[in-house]
């Protein structure tokens, strides 16, 4: 088969581009430690009673992040038609300069959990517990900082109402356990 010189060149460059893409992402995952949503969060039967018995959800008593150790915290969120609990109504509170792991699940239909304008983003699927870890930097002032959270998957009439907030609280105003 005759392949033109330019065809070969183009083919080679295309392959290079592709391998380059895969390379950078592999580096991101292995070298820089960018984490994906995976199956680490485990599963739970999609009903309120079983979700509330789950260890992570049982320990979530109010809207404040639960301290684990050092600067690590956990928040368990139930996404349901058409609110986040906690998050809608009163914001989820996390301290500044912390690593917070969110556990999110749904008792009804598929939802989304997206912290607007950041790459903290996961689907929320009934039966599955999504686990994402988010790093909150130190604040530049002593005012709390707010992030919007939206449901980005259609979940029924009323979906456009489904949103919440995360509030990053300065260390000296943090009332939760530390």
């Amino acid at each position, binding site marked *: 088969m005759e392949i033109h010189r330019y065809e070969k060149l183009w083919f080679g460059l295309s392959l290079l581009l592709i391998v380059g893409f895969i390379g950078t992402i592999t580096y991101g995952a292995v070298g820089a430690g960018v984490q*994906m949503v995976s199956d680490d969060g485990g599963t739970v039967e999609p009903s309120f009673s079983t979700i509330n018995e789950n260890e992570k959800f049982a320990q979530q008593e109010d809207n404040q992040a639960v301290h684990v150790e050092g600067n690590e915290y956990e928040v368990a969120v139930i996404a349901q038609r058409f609110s986040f609990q906690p998050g809608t109504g009163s914001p989820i509170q996390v301290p500044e300069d912390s690593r917070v792991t969110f556990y999110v699940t749904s008792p009804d239909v598929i939802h989304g959990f997206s912290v607007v304008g950041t790459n903290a983003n996961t689907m929320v699927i009934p039966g599955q517990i999504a686990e994402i870890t988010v790093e909150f930097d130190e604040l530049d002032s002593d005012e709390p900082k707010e992030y*919007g959270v939206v449901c980005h998957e259609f979940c029924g009439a009323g979906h456009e109402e489904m949103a919440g907030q995360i509030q990053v609280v300065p260390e000296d105003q943090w009332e939760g356990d530390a």
Partner: protein
Amino acid sequence: MEVFANEYPDEAWVVRAALGSAFVALAIGGLMGLIQTLHRTGFYDSLISNADYYTVLTLHGVAMVLLFTIFFLVGFFQWAITDSLGRKSEDIRITKLWYGMMVLGSAMSAVTILGGFVDSGSLSGVEADVLYTFYAPLEAHPLYYMGLAVFIIGTWIAGFDWFRSWWAWKKENPDERMPLRTFMVLTTMLMWYLASLGVAISVVFFLIPWSLGIFDSVNSLLTRTLFWFFGHPVVYFWLMPVYMMWYVIMPKLAGGRLFSDPLARIVFVLFLVLSVPTGIHHQYVDPGIAEGFKFLAMTNTMFLLLPSLLTAFTVVASIEHGARQRGGEGYFGWLTALPWGKPAFTGMTLAGLMFAAAGFSGMINAGMSINYLVHNTLWVVGHFHMTVGTAVALSIMAATYWFLPKITGREIFSRRLGLAQVLLWFIGMVLMGNAMHRAGLAGVPRRTADPTYDQVIYDGAYGAIGELRFQIALGGVLLSLSLVLFFAHLVLSSFDIGERAAATPDSIPAPLSGPEQAPKVLDNIRLWTSIAVVLILITYILPLASIVTDGGGWLGDSYGVIVAEYVLPAVSSTIDIFVGVVA
């Protein structure tokens, strides 16, 4: 050669009917599109309620990407098979049967979607506000799923019909190479059989029984994964007829011929092999699927860039060749020698240009870590309006100016009007597509009747949000105007105004490097299909097994029961057999 419509009147009837159905869907979808852009940007949101927005959106999605694209495909492929093999349909009744089934299926689903607008009377309770992705446990009326099933079975019979033509031809011409257009149709259909299996299983075994009340629950992640098993390759189903136009029609319009027949075949083989084992890239942010499986899907996806990059080369090279035949000179000067006055050529070129641009946002979507930034934002909507909404839709509309005379026997009404239409679509889509991408970066979600929230302030990285909204609405209006021009053109062409008989000869010039240069193995579609099957097994068996075993069983109702006891042995013995075959 005679004009197609006169040589094959029965087949031309089916082609015209299929195109007619496609354009009805396009008209309905376009009207919904206009309502959406004005509603969700807040420019005119009193026509429908927020709740009805999702009915509108379901109709838009289904009409555009399932009905418009696929009806056009079957019509165009029927022409390609009949014309390239030079033989009538083996049994025209079968041809009419599959067309009829597709119409019936569409009608069934359409009724349930339209029922969403009606709150009382005999249609109340008949609804399908589930969007075209119908993620369970959002539930539609059973007729919605049944309609989809009937529609898909119609396409399966169409594929069988085309294979039959090829088998019959082969018997009479045992020593000849498969004609290029037939090759493209058959490889595309094989890909389609593999891909549509996923959604067929989901619909027939889970969603229909569940919506009828036979099962109480479904495994949400399982049906979602089965949907995307189909949902990614379906984009190539939209794209393949367009690639056929770019390979076959564009070089001819440019005054030349296809650069390389073998390369075109390689491209279609690559699509057959790689299209399906990539669907998990739509689930990068799904819980319940391990990172490794996502990585595998990403690797396949990245390699799938290859056939499109090769296409870019071949198509541009063929066009340049055509321009030089017409007297074009210089590094870039040849561009002025192209037939820009032909709406078919100009439209397809603009569509190709936009596809190249959209390719870049696609590469971003494909990267599994950067995908987190854009997943389910308007960015994605911008991306696919430039791909399926322009590369495919604009190419289809443009090619129709060339294609219509073949199947009706009469020239189109006016090339000026055609040019105005394709240019307007291009302008409208640059505005809408680009602004959607940027709004997505600021975090504006897709699929919502109203993206303003008390709790959220968008930080427009590039341009204020108000401005982006305005651009989206303006673009949407220009696109709708372009559609009006398109339909006006169709109507005017079908009246007697300016009636001229379609020109002859009606033929496609032979490629520069012909099929004799292509190794025989390329035509061994059995081999390529087997490789595709193996790749699919590798990428899908394990994730599906873990979704079923860990995620509550086949129906999502058996948490704590060890489903592993009956599923895992089946999986491991499949793998044993597979390893045995390979070793």
